[in-house]
């Protein structure tokens, strides 16, 4: 047996020696939730980084949708096998911050001698991902909803373009249906609580929850069942029950109903540009989100995701992470990412660079989201949302609002119930995280 073991040990030593010479570069894992075309863009940006230097290697791994990535991260963290970087959507902000599992981006970058200047990032991104001016996560893919429309359909119905306010847009949608231009004047997006409720309240400057939508503490409560949002849900219900607005339902994705030419409009993330450009075979364009007549519209709020750094790794790995973040924040990288995906550039420098090269003259719809995010001064109602257990609350809100669509309960009652259920979750979150921010 002895010679065998000897040979084995020898081979092992050789293997180790080989590995240590080949692995001069520090390798870090990056779990993300981007699939399809966007997943390919992630691979490209990672390859750009890997090719740009020799010391670090980033391995990008797609782990399903945002929920699945978060679930996988939690399981991995509990098993002490967490990756270095995970992409997590804006909704999970408080979950991540209070998890005790992350290293804040500002802290990490300062330690690595690459301090972050938050003033370089665009305001709606900073207000979402920073606490007291310190970035908690590295902004990666930021988006905001805009209105995509089928120009052929609008022309056929006798309109130039969609009206800027709901009061102008609604009769147009009715006319498109009445004139038989299309059977589906608008399709309801799957994430409508983001585009139709949260962004509606930001743009129209009405409060969604107390304490500046949760920015000022965990003792926040929802108050969207009073005021203009009730009217918005009434409007949605009217559009759905008159058949002007259609629900895509399971089995297909709402944006497909727009790109196939079946539906005339959709309010969707600016990141949908990738899908629309690839699939729409008609004359299309986009516009800013509609708002209420008589209101000076505020900025919309972002969606999308950021990159979180997890605890429990060696100093070399953190050095690699910092280098990767630095690369991502570079103006060149940001401009490329913005143009390749449709997401907004997260720094003002990148926006200016894209503008300077004349990109928006050729692609005017790409600028809508940026302009909409940066217009005016953010008010308490348009800073963003800091809601604990936001995923869980969303499920409840969407369930109640769709009960109103179905005519199961009156709109006011549905919203009261949604607020009640949401507040119950908020109180539980407060109970568990008492003393944290």
């Amino acid at each position, binding site marked *: 047996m002895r010679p065998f073991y000897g040979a084995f040990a020898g081979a092992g030593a050789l293997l180790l020696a080989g590995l240590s010479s080949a692995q001069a570069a520090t390798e870090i894992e990056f779990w993300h939730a981007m699939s399809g075309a966007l997943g390919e863009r992630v691979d490209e940006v990672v390859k750009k980084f890997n090719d740009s230097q020799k010391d670090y290697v980033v391995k990008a791994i797609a782990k399903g949708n945002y929920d699945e990535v978060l679930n996988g991260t939690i399981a991995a963290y509990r098993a002490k096998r967490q990756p270095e970087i995970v992409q997590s959507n804006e909704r999970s902000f408080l979950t991540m911050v209070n998890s*005790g599992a992350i290293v804040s981006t500002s802290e990490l970058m300062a330690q690595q001698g690459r301090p972050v200047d938050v003033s370089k990032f665009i305001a709606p991104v900073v207000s979402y991902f920073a606490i007291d001016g310190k970035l908690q996560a590295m902004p990666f893919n930021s988006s905001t909803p805009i209105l995509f429309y089928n120009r052929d359909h609008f022309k056929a119905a006798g309109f130039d373009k969609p009206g800027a306010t709901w009061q102008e847009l609604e009769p147009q949608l009715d006319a498109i249906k009445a004139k038989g231009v299309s059977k589906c004047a608008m399709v309801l997006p799957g994430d409508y609580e983001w585009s139709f409720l949260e962004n509606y309240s930001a743009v129209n400057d009405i409060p969604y929850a107390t304490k500046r939508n949760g920015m000022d503490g965990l003792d926040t409560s929802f108050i969207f069942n009073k005021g203009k949002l009730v009217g918005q849900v009434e409007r949605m219900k009217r559009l759905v029950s008159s058949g002007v607005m259609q629900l895509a339902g399971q089995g297909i994705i709402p944006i497909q*109903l727009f790109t196939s030419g079946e539906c005339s409009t959709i309010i969707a993330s600016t990141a949908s540009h990738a899908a629309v450009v690839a699939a729409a075979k008609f004359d299309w364009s986009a516009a800013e989100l509609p708002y209420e007549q008589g209101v000076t519209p505020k900025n919309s709020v972002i969606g999308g995701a950021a990159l979180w750094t997890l605890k429990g790794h060696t100093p070399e790995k953190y050095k690699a992470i910092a280098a990767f973040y630095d690369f991502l924040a570079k103006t060149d990288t940001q401009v490329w990412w913005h143009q390749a995906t449709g997401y907004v550039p997260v720094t003002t420098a990148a926006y200016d660079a894209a503008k300077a090269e004349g990109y928006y003259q050729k692609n005017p719809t790409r600028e809508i989201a940026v302009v909409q995010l940066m217009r005016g001064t953010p008010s308490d109602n348009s800073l963003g949302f800091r809601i604990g257990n936001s995923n869980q609350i969303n499920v409840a809100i969407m369930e109640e609002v769709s009960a109103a669509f*179905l005519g199961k309960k009156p709109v006011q009652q549905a919203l009261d119930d949604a607020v009640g259920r949401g507040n119950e979750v908020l109180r539980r979150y407060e109970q568990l995280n008492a003393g944290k921010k």
Partner: protein
Amino acid sequence: MPARNSTAALPVAAGGGALRLRWPFRRLLLKGDGQAESGLKRAHFRDWRLPFWLLAPQLFILLLFFFIPSIRALIQAFQLTDPFGATTQWVGFQNFERLFRSGVYWSSAQVTLIFTIAQNVLTLSLALLLAFASNHILRGRGVYRTVLLLPYAIAPAIAGIMLAFLFNPRVGPVAHMLQGLGFDWDPNRNSWHALSLIVMAASWKHICYNYIFLVAALLSVPQSILESAYLDGAGPIQRFLRISLPMITPTLFFLIVINFVYGLFETFAIVDATTRGGPAGATSILVYKVYQDGFVTLDLGSSAAQSVVLMALALALTFAQFRFVERRVNYSV
């Protein structure tokens, strides 16, 4: 063939030739007098070791995948915890109180009741019909049976997505057909349509399972009795209802239990793919809520409490079935 037991120091057992075992098994399995008997009763194991090792792999798997998770669920049901496990608070019965106060939970329970019963009735009656029919087909019986078994090999999520697509009111061919017939089909806006969709998806997946058991049961009905009934002038349907059906009640009973378990515990993937519990919670059955609250929205405490309730429900249901329904089952023929 002589038993190769020369290494054993034990006296050679006159086991009648039927049961010739080598040393370790012989010693463990045979009774003290060295006589082997047919049938394995507890008395046959002189020693605890053989039965232990025979059961060990299964017990280990049960421990790993059933008992440990169950106990953890039980503990978690009394906790409020951060998904990452950073903070954990003991909250006593708070999770359960919240559950039973919640109107959403009760409506989910109601939906589950309708769903499991509808699914059970549909699955069993269709499988019975198909088993009866394919038993009476002479040509290509094997082909029919194979085709009928195919859906069982399809993953629940794929079955769900397929049905969701076929019945999608905007693009689904079946939905268009229904609408063409003047039926205003829309599972996105009608709770009953959505519910019937998941009943269809769940049943379609499970008919084959029921079917294979029923075919086997029907095959075991003694031909002589059926033939004498035939000679007495009973038609095929009469023979089926009066002779075959009563004789397969043990199988039917078994399938009812299995179907309830299936409907209660194994259908969350189908619901997730077909309707995502919507519209407005109309198809959010209890097990889907466990999945959604636990894995999608990360409310681990509530999800654990719900799974404990489901576990208790399953125990109660199985007990009730064996206590009351089994009395009507005829085992002796």
